[in-house]
Structure formats: structure tokens, C-alpha cells
């Protein structure tokens, strides 16, 4: 498509003003979601470091019941899954939906209620767990009084996204919108079913872990992944100024993800007391995930082709592309991990922990960082104050997650091999793992330094320390076309 066909300055101004108006309408609630998410990210990071240190230095902070390993680990997961990733998912969905529908956000005040409910829920969840109300249901550890807050908050966001969509002025529904619409529909269903069947009206025995793993895997697969992939589908073309390479591939990727991702998850119970066909069904679903993953991988790579030099100039692009590449990698790894022979070793070890963090951090969180670097200046009308802070954030995050992944993957794999061999004593497995567990602490500290740089940048931006964006709240290049 030719880009040089004359764009009239007048059109340009009008389009820019429209976008500025949309961003303006989202500013309050989306910034509230974004700021809360950063707060929980920092809280989650501190809990993560405490938990990590305790695994290799058991005397660290011993004697404080609130900070015993099991509680801190549950609180960490709540902080980063419910607090950080979910709140970005919601705030980002609202913003992208408004932009892509070319419509302003209606009744923004109710979204403040939603974010407040979600914050109260997360606060109750973390403090409740630390005080001894944790439920020991993985990913659903929040005490029984928390889910109503999440369900209500989520309901508002889902309704708002749907309402925005109904009021759209842009006829075409872009690929990012498919992903967001599906995610805000899937997650409330997923969450409510899981809470009902495990906590409020518990099913018998092993039905609980089955529902639990269906939820856990789909939390990543049908809530975080769609929105993160959708974000990449919006940001990458937008930043480099080039449409998605193949729209056919993107639609294939979307439907294949919808159909197959939801079937994965049961391989986490491999060898467990559940019907064997369940794990087999999940293995099939996981293997079929190669289709959407390859589709997205090719598409993003081909879109980026000849534009990789832009990684040098755009912070948002750098994080997003890092996350997008990791998506391909972590999904391939996930498919392989679902295979029986592989899982028999990797199950019950730190290998799975490394994989989970590669997905939730290397992929989802990195793309969300990219989203912040693109979205926040357009909401506040301020540029980022310091390139140095962004660089510190990027390098800490990327090196940190690499150390994390490599260390625990190697350690976890051999842990699994040794666990499968009864001649190796438990004591020697424990001792073997210590250096790898230590490397995780190093990684965690690096990641946290990155998060502090990120939060500082964010606060500086809110405080108005950055340069005003030229021409108004959205990104105006110049009044006249520069092509």
C-alpha cells in the first residue's frame, strides 16, 4: 500500500484530535489500573525475593509466621498474577479497545470502582494469605472472601469492553479486538467456574485438581496470552508504521488458539490419580498449539523484517519484540513439555517453575512493559523523563529472566532425573539444587532493580517531569506530513 498518497494536513489534524480525545477519555481509569499494577508488581517482587532466598538460606527471616516460605510463595503469586498481570490486562484492554473502536470511553467513573474493587481484593488476598488464610489451591490461594471482589471488578471491565465495542465507529474489527473480546468473555467464566467448583461448593477429591489445572493453564492461555498477543499485534505494526504481514495468518492463529489452548493443562497432573485420557487429551491440545504459535511467530517476524534496527530507537518496540519472540519459544517448550516422556522428568521440579516464569514474565510481562512505554506518554501527554532508566529496566529485565530461566531449567531437569532414580538420596538432590536456587535469587534481584527503575520512570511521568509531547496528548509527528 502506498503511504505517500497525499494526506491532507487537515485530515491529519482531525484524526490526531480524534485520537487525542479518545486517549483523554481513558486517561483517569487506565492510569489508575496502570499505577495499581505497578504497585503490585513491586510488592510481588519483594515477596519473590524473600521466597527465593528462603529456599537456599532457610534461616533467613525464620520465626516470623507471616513470612514462612509457603505463605510468601502464595502471596507472591497473587501479587503478580491477580495484582500485576491482570490489572494491566484490564487497563490495557480498555485503552486498546477504545482506540481500535475509535470511540471514547463512556462512564469512566465506574471503571474506578472496578479497579478499586480489584485493589481491595488483592490487598485482602495478600494480607490474608500472610496472616494465615491461604487456601493452598495453586493460583487460587486467595482466601474465600476475596473472589467476590474480583468477580465484580472483572464484570464491570468485561461489560465496559463490550459496551465500547458496541459503540464502535470503526467498521473493521482488528485482530487485537478479537483477542481482547474473547479474553474478557473467557476469563469471568473460567474464574467463576473454578472458584465455585474448588472453593465455594467443592467437588469431590481429584475433580478439584482437574478443575484447578484447567483454570491455571487457561489463566495464562485464555486471559493473559490473548491480551498480550493482541497487544503485540497492535504495537508492532503501529510502532514501525507497517501493517501486519499476513492477516490470514493472524486469523488462523486466533482460532487455533481459541480451540486448542483451552484443552491444554491436564499434563500437569501426569502420573496422578486421574483418568489417563485427560492427560492424553491435553497432550493433543498442547501439540496442536504449534499451529497458532507458528502463525503468530511468522507473522510478527515477517512484520518486523527489515525493521529490526528500530529496536534501537523504540523502547516500547524493544520490550514488545522481546516478549513476542519469547512467546514462540515458551510455547514450543510448553508443547514439548506436555509429552509424556518429557513430563515424567520435568514434573514436580523447578524446570516447570522456570517455564512458568518464562511465560508469565519473559512473554506476558515484557509485552506489557512495552505497552506501558507506548501507552503512558499518550495518556499523560508527557514523554518519558529518562532514557537511562528505560535502558536499566530493559537490561535488568532481559538479563534477569535469562539467568532465571537458564539456571532453573538446568537445575530442574537434573532434579527430575535424580528424583526418578531411587538410588539418589533426597539429601543429595537438595544439596545439588542449592547453586541453582541461588542463581534464582540473583535473577530476582536484577528483575527487581529493573522494576524499581520502571516504577521511578512511571512516577516521574505522572509528576510531569518529562518533556511535554509535541503538539498535544497523542503523538503528533508534525503538523505537515513528513513522508
Amino acid at each position, binding site marked *: 500500500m502506498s503511504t505517500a498518497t497525499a494526506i491532507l494536513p487537515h485530515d491529519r489534524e482531525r484524526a490526531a484530535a480524534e485520537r487525542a480525545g479518545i486517549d483523554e477519555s481513558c486517561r483517569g481509569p487506565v492510569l489508575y489500573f496502570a499505577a495499581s499494577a505497578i504497585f503490585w508488581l513491586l510488592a510481588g517482587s519483594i515477596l519473590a525475593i524473600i521466597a527465593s532466598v528462603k529456599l537456599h538460606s532457610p534461616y533467613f527471616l525464620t520465626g516470623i509466621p507471616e513470612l514462612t516460605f509457603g505463605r510468601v510463595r502464595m502471596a507472591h503469586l497473587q501479587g503478580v498474577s491477580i495484582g500485576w498481570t491482570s490489572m494491566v490486562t484490564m487497563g490495557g484492554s480498555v485503552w486498546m479497545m477504545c482506540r481500535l473502536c475509535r470511540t471514547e470511553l463512556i462512564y469512566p467513573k465506574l471503571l474506578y470502582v472496578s479497579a478499586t474493587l480489584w485493589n481491595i481484593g488483592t490487598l485482602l488476598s495478600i494480607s490474608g494469605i500472610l496472616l494465615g488464610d491461604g487456601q493452598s489451591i495453586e493460583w487460587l490461594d486467595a482466601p474465600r472472601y476475596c473472589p467476590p471482589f474480583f468477580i465484580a471488578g472483572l464484570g464491570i471491565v468485561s461489560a465496559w469492553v463490550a459496551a465500547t465495542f458496541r459503540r464502535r465507529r470503526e467498521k473493521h474489527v482488528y485482530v487485537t479486538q478479537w483477542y481482547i473480546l474473547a479474553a474478557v468473555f473467557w476469563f469471568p467464566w473460567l474464574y467463576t467456574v473454578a472458584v465455585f467448583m474448588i472453593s465455594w461448593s467443592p467437588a469431590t477429591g481429584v475433580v478439584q485438581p482437574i478443575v484447578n489445572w484447567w483454570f491455571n493453564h487457561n489463566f495464562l492461555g485464555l486471559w493473559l496470552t490473548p491480551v498480550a498477543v493482541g497487544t503485540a499485534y497492535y504495537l508492532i505494526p503501529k510502532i514501525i508504521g507497517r501493517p501486519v504481514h499476513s492477516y490470514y495468518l493472524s486469523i488462523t492463529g486466533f482460532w487455533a488458539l481459541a480451540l486448542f489452548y483451552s484443552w491444554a493443562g491436564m499434563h500437569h497432573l501426569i502420573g496422578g490419580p486421574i483418568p489417563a485420557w485427560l492427560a492424553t487429551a491435553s497432550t493433543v491440545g498442547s501439540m496442536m498449539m504449534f499451529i497458532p504459535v507458528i502463525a503468530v511467530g511468522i507473522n510478527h517476524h515477517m512484520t518486523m523484517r527489515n525493521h529490526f534496527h528500530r529496536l534501537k530507537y523504540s523502547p516500547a518496540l524493544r520490550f514488545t519484540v522481546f516478549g513476542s519472540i519469547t512467546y514462540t519459544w515458551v510455547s514450543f517448550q510448553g508443547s514439548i513439555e506436555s509429552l509424556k516422556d518429557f513430563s515424567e522428568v520435568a514434573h514436580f521440579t523447578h524446570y516447570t517453575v522456570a517455564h512458568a516464569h518464562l511465560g508469565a514474565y519473559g512473554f506476558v510481562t515484557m509485552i506489557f512493559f512495552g505497552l506501558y512505554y507506548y501507552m503512558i506518554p499518550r495518556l499523560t501527554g508527557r514523554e518519558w523523563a529518562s532514557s537511562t532508566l528505560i535502558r536499566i529496566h530493559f537490561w535488568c529485565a532481559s538479563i534477569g529472566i535469562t539467568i532465571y530461566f537458564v539456571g532453573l531449567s538446568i537445575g530442574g531437569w537434573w532434579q527430575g532425573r535424580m528424583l526418578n*532414580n531411587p538410588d539418589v538420596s533426597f*539429601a543429595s538432590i537438595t544439596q545439588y539444587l542449592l547453586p541453582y536456587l541461588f542463581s534464582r535469587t540473583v535473577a530476582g534481584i536484577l528483575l527487581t532493580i529493573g522494576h524499581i527503575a520502571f516504577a521511578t520512570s512511571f512516577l516521574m511521568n505522572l509528576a510531569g517531569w518529562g518533556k511535554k509531547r509535541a503538539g498535544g496528548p497523542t503523538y503528533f509527528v508534525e503538523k505537515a506530513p513528513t513522508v
Partner: protein
Amino acid sequence: MDRGMVIFLGALLTFSSSWLGLVLYPYWQLNGEKPYQKEPTDDPYPLPLQGEAVAGRKIYQANGCMYCHSQQVRSEKFGNWWDEHGQERTGADIKRGWGARRNVSRDYIYDNPTMLGTMRTGPDLANVGSRYSEAWQHTHTFNPRSLNNWSIMPSFAFLYRKEKVVGERSEKALKLGREWTVDPGYRWRPSSAAWDAILSTQGESIKARFLSDPAHTTAAIDPNTPEGKKRLLDFWLTTEEEGVQIVPTGDADALIAYVLALRKAEVPVPEAKE
């Protein structure tokens, strides 16, 4: 693509497929499974938790024990390793002594929540109730390193109370040397100055106790040499603190009652046969 309805229907259909297949179908197949009774006169297996163990499960939950300890013994055919003859073998869980048979869904019908676990930072606990005594469990929970110096398990000293002995020592008091009880949760050692101070006042009686200990009677000891000081200290640290004792709180008793009730692989059930 400009129809929202297509996306909605597609999302609905794809998701319902997994909901039906992975949630509702197993629910229909496994919910409400009944206990096993070989003869009508036999006790059914399993039985619901009794007494303190019910409260103990809450402590187990609240402290996230599940995040390091699984509760499932896997099949004799699960996993593989090669022995010294290069022979491929399987079934490490059972060979490690974690249970006599694999676990089946019936073992969990009274579990709520069902804590199968996802990680083995520590050993499997499905059948731990038949492996260790109550006293061992208390000592280990109070400070795991007092029994296994390599352990990375947290100390749960906060579930125990340190109190003055009034009259007789409590029967429930943990039998632990002062290195574990002076500063509960930690391993304690006096500084060398502090040790000199202790020796200057109680040196003779510590030495007498050292010599009367059956393990030391033949060894001469000189408390004035560094080597002798160290040997006396090592001995003294293993002796019990005078006048104080460590006793389990109700929470600790409940937790251990729960742990001792974990016997998920003892009673044979027909479907566990391989």
C-alpha cells in the same frame, strides 16, 4: 471480519468444548465416588479425617506446605532410570518408600481441598503417616535441621512455645539440645568470649557431666586448651537447657495429627493393581 457476533460465538463454542471435556465430563465421571469396602463387615476405605487432624489440615493449607510436598504416589511404571547394570527401571516413588502402591482417585474422596501438589522440593507426603513417629514429626517441624543438617525446610518454631518448667518436664516437651532451643527457629552457639564466661562459672559441672556421659568416660579433657574448650562446648550444646522446655501449641498438635493421618497408600484397593 467486522461482526462481533462471530467472535462471540466462536469464543463460546471453543471454550465450551474444553469446559465440557475437561471439567464437566470428569465431574460427571468422578464426583461423588464412594469408599471401598471389600466385605460388608469391613471398615470402609478411606475414612474422613477425625478429630484434631481436621484443624491440622487448615494449618497445612495456611502455611503452603503443598508448595514443596506433593501427595501422590505414582505408578510402578512411572519415570525411568538406569541402574548400575545399565538396566532401565521405573517407579521411583514406590522404591523410595513413599508408598506401597500408586494412588488412585478414591484415596482423595474426603480431601478438601485436594492438595496433590506440584513440586517436590521436599519428599512426597501421601503416606508419610506410616513412616515417622509423632515425636520425630514434632522435632522435625520445630527445626528440620536438628534432624537433617542438609534440609532447607523452614523451621516452624512459631507453632511451639518455650516455657519455664513448672514441676516435672512435660511429656510432650521436645527432646532437643540447647543449640536448638536457646533461640527457637535458629541454631545457637555462644561467642568464644561468652563461652569462656560460662566455663568460668559452670566449667566444673559441665566437665563432670561430660565425663559422666557414657560416650566420653575414657577421654581425658582439659578445659584450658582450645581443643578441650571446643569439645566441651560441642557436648554442652547437645544437652538440654535447664528449667525451660519447648512444647507444641494446639496448632502444632493439630498439624502433626494431620500429617500422621496421611496414609493414602496403605490399604489396598482393587483399581490400584498394575
